[in-house]
């Protein structure tokens, strides 16, 4: 019964979606297309085109996606960071340890499920390597594909690996918490510096813009991305840690 209803619903949904996307021109070069609409006096310029063309002037970051994420739509990114922060916090709230009756049994379990030497050794070798790869990704966020979120995730995956290999591997909660907080505070402070100095929140071209396509370019964008990297890394690690502690 439920299946039939669901199928029917999806069929109707598909019908309308199909009709809609039929109206799309997939792969059409809308950025450089000439508008033939004279009804509207306002200029029609796709925002994407504006970003592509003015990015070098305004942000000097060779990765346009990064400059959109961090600079043009930096407010979104602040929100994103907040969302992750929220998820980590909420997770902490929900998964707060309640006193378990069978504490001893738990310890026995953990020794039984200890991974083999291969896993342990491999992960301890790989850990710094993954870590530096993560760092590379978020440091080069404005030059190459990637950025703070990706790099942070990579770093968190390194920690995830350690959690899997060493059942008694513990992280220092207060350090991670303070990294989380400090990076968040720094992000907002960067925004506030712009506000105090120039009356513009999240103004990122406060420092010299540097030479295009080199590491020290794009103003504060890499700094922000590094902060985001720290934040995401520590938050996702905390998330993973919460899960592990609860089991």
């Amino acid at each position, binding site marked *: 019964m439920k299946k039939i209803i669901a199928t029917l619903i999806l069929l109707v949904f598909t019908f309308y979606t199909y009709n809609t996307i039929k109206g799309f021109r997939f792969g059409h070069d809308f950025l450089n297309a000439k508008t033939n609409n004279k009804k509207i006096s306002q200029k029609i310029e796709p925002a994407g085109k504006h970003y592509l063309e003015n990015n070098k002037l305004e942000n000097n970051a060779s990765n346009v996606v990064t400059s959109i994420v961090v600079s043009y739509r930096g407010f979104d990114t602040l929100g*994103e960071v907040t969302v992750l922060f929220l998820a980590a916090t909420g997770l902490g709230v929900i998964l707060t340890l309640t006193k378990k009756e069978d504490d001893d049994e738990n310890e026995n379990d953990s020794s039984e499920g200890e991974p083999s030497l291969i896993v342990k050794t491999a992960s301890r070798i790989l850990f710094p390597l993954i870590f530096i790869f993560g760092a590379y990704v978020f440091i080069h966020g404005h030059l190459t594909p990637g950025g703070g979120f990706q790099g942070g995730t990579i770093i968190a995956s390194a920690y995830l690996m350690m959690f899997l290999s060493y059942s008694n591997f513990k992280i220092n909660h207060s350090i991670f918490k303070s990294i989380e907080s400090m990076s968040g505070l720094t992000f907002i402070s960067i925004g506030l510096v712009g506000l105090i100095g120039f009356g513009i929140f999240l103004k990122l071209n406060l420092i010299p813009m540097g030479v295009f396509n080199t590491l020290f370019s794009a103003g504060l964008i890499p700094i922000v991305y590094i902060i985001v990297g720290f934040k995401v890394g520590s938050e996702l690690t905390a998330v993973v840690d919460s*899960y592990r502690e609860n089991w």
Partner: protein
Amino acid sequence: MSWVETVYNYSYFVGAFGLIMIGLYAVMVKTNLIKILIGINLIDVGVNIFLVSLGYIKGKGAPIFSNASVTPANSIDPIPQALVLTAIVIGVAVTALSLSVIIKLYQHYKTLDISKIREMRW
């Protein structure tokens, strides 16, 4: 344009909405909470693919000007990619949170069947 042609031309959209449909089906039919969560994730992925493919322009490359061959004129639209980044992060956050809720629910009700978890109704 026949529908076969449409499906071929719009394969990204078809894939994206296919994933969304599968996800919705799982959400509506499966009773296991984990499966429902997987369904939600499928929907998320589908939407993300949809968003990314919105920015695609035939024959153009990524908007990263690290070598001189890439110019604004032959880059795709960068905005959807930025949006997808945000959407992914939000999806991750929701997934993490709902997993934790499901864990706790399981400890509480000893079941993952959504139709049995209905202490509050009417």
